[in-house]
């Protein structure tokens, strides 16, 4: 079982991308913009992902543990979604699918298989919410280079000093 857990833990090692893909800056439709805003609020407040991964997904240290950069992840959207749903056993990343490990949907393992190595419970998110937060991250963070002042204002708004240090 230990090896199975180790596989699950290493399955999702987040390796840096060789290069960030070029992205077309096509304007978003109002519905697309709303969907991204919905995903952002999950990342920012409801699931509070930013507590560990930082507002721009660049990763952090400290009381949220050594949390990896989402901007540099090499995971596919499907793998990424699985990590959000299932967490990472032994790595501190919480799971967000309320029914994770009640059956074999997560890495083929159940709560009984994991025992004391169950990842922590995060905020439970619906399928729609998980899709939204993954969409948000792939639209704004994953594969992107260093965050900019405008990224900061987009995240925090303009009524705070929060982005001042990034102003060139």
């Amino acid at each position: 079982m230990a090896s199975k857990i180790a596989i699950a833990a290493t399955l999702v090692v987040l390796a840096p991308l060789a290069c960030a893909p070029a992205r077309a800056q096509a304007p978003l439709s109002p519905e697309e913009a709303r969907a991204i805003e919905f995903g952002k609020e999950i990342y920012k407040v409801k699931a509070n992902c930013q507590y560990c991964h930082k507002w721009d997904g660049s990763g952090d240290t400290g009381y949220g543990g050594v949390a990896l950069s989402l901007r540099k992840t090499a995971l596919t959207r499907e793998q990424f979604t699985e990590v959000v749903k299932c967490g990472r056993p032994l790595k501190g990343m919480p799971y967000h699918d309320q029914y994770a490990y009640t059956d074999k949907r997560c890495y083929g393992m159940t709560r009984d298989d994991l025992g004391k190595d169950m990842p922590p419970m995060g905020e439970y998110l619906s399928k729609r919410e998980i899709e939204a937060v993954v969409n948000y991250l792939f639209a704004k963070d994953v594969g992107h280079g260093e965050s900019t002042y405008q990224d900061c204002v987009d995240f925090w708004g303009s009524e705070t000093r929060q982005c001042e240090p990034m102003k060139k």
Partner: protein
Amino acid sequence: MKNLAYAGALACSLFATTSLTPIALTPVAAGDMTQERALNVAKEPQNWLLHHGNYEGHRFSQLKLINTDTVKNLKPVFSVALGGFESGGRYKHGNLEGTPIVEDGMMYVTDGWGSVYAIDVSSGKKGQIKWKFDPAVDRPWAGDVACCGVNNRGVALWKDKVISISLDGRMFSLNKATGEMDWERKIADPAIAETLTLAPLVIRDLAIVGPAGGEFGIRGWIDATDLNTGKQVWRTYTIPGAGEPGNETWKDGKERWKHGGGSVWETATYDAESDTFYQGVGNAGPDWDPEYRPGDSKWAASVIALSASDGKIKWGYQYTPNDPYDYDEISEHPIINAKVNGEDRKLLLHAARNGFFYALDRTNGSFVLGKQYVDELNWTTGLDPKTGRPLNYNPNTDVQEYSPGSHGSRAKPLSERLCPSHFGGKNWQPSAFNPELKLLYIPSVEGCNQVETVEQKDFADQGGTIKPRERFSGGGQKTTRPLYGSLKAVDPTTGEIKARLKLDYPNWSGALATAGNLVFIGHADGTLSAHDAKSLQEVWSFNVGTGINAPPISYSVNGKQYIAVLVGSRQSPFVQGLVPELKNTSTASMLYVFGL
């Protein structure tokens, strides 16, 4: 004339129940808070005038109508909904860690974003919010560099003012009767990740505070404000500068003491006899990469004794030299006089985050005794009986290697088990001392976790890439097993544990001891419990339905004794996330008051 004054006061008092005009808010009975009163709180057992109950940090109420016989009849008598749970910065919601202050039927409490509520509790039937002061904090700006939550641990009283602070680094002098601001002073600067969370310590006309920010590269300090003018009187750095005693313990040769941590985030204790206050000091920066800062890293993880009048350091005592754990020692240092081995001693007590109980000689900082109080401790094999230094401290090395596997290093970043966990032991949550039974009650976090080292990069002003407000912790914590808690009654003259009680959850509320031979604590599942002061057996409890992270207090009005506590908590996601039954707890922001 006397009768006229009484009639006028009565009219104001009656008017106050129906109107919020300024004249109606004029207190009838409240007198000015003076140094004389602060030194003699024992003469006003009906009030809770100082953060820790008294300057000595005892958190002991002399009231005893609620006692081991009557506590079974204790019930909630009213509650008051507060605010301050808005998200901000990296936090999903606020938190309540404040200690209420009570003076003549008026209670002053704060929420995490620094709003102050003046609540009339004189009726014993309801709490009427007379005024609320909102400092309008820029929440993302302050909340993104707050290490551990949206916190504010309370106010202080001075003359006819309420002295409060806000997370974004300001101090306020507020009219006690109306809440109108007299002045504000920007003391700590979130631009360099300094925040304020502690209740001010008022001594004479000085308000003493210090900043949190030990995970973000601050250099800690202790600062005194003249309350008459709102101006600074003195500031003393907790991390000594070049040429100051202790600076030689920063041996990197690159002036890394300038970002050396040593934060201050819980209120000090004060000995009026020597005009000395005793301030616990936080972790060194960076927390978990001690190779970045070879040397003992003074005065991080220490207590320092300072002169109130000029802020000069009289002595310091370091608990965990070159701390690789984040064994921050900001919490209170109760003062007692007692016989140790037949000799009268002036003691300074501390239940340390590193898992040991210490008694020091407060006149000179020398070690008197120390003993493990947590269930499990593995980072050292004990304390040197003469110096109190960890037995595996090596004076011939600059980077300490405590017990193998208990901390990370650059060569082997992830530790094995660390006990107590980096949370402690006892974190900020205050202990209580019963002077009649001569027992110190230590509410604590029990269990183990891991810490991980990540090689720390330099700050931009020292040739590196780290910008102000960025993380400067040299690693992180990892908690994969549930922690639990305990309440222990310790004889401070021997360190012997006289009674112990295992708690289901780590304790984050602190304790209250009363002359009714009771000890009150709050729990993460919303239970407020009372315990027999000798056996610690639970004798009463009530569940408020959401977590308690704040210390209870006691006061009386019109001869009736009450217990009050702020309710509503942000639990660490790494604690709550491992406890299924707490998973779906909703937050609230409430004051609860209990009476017979």
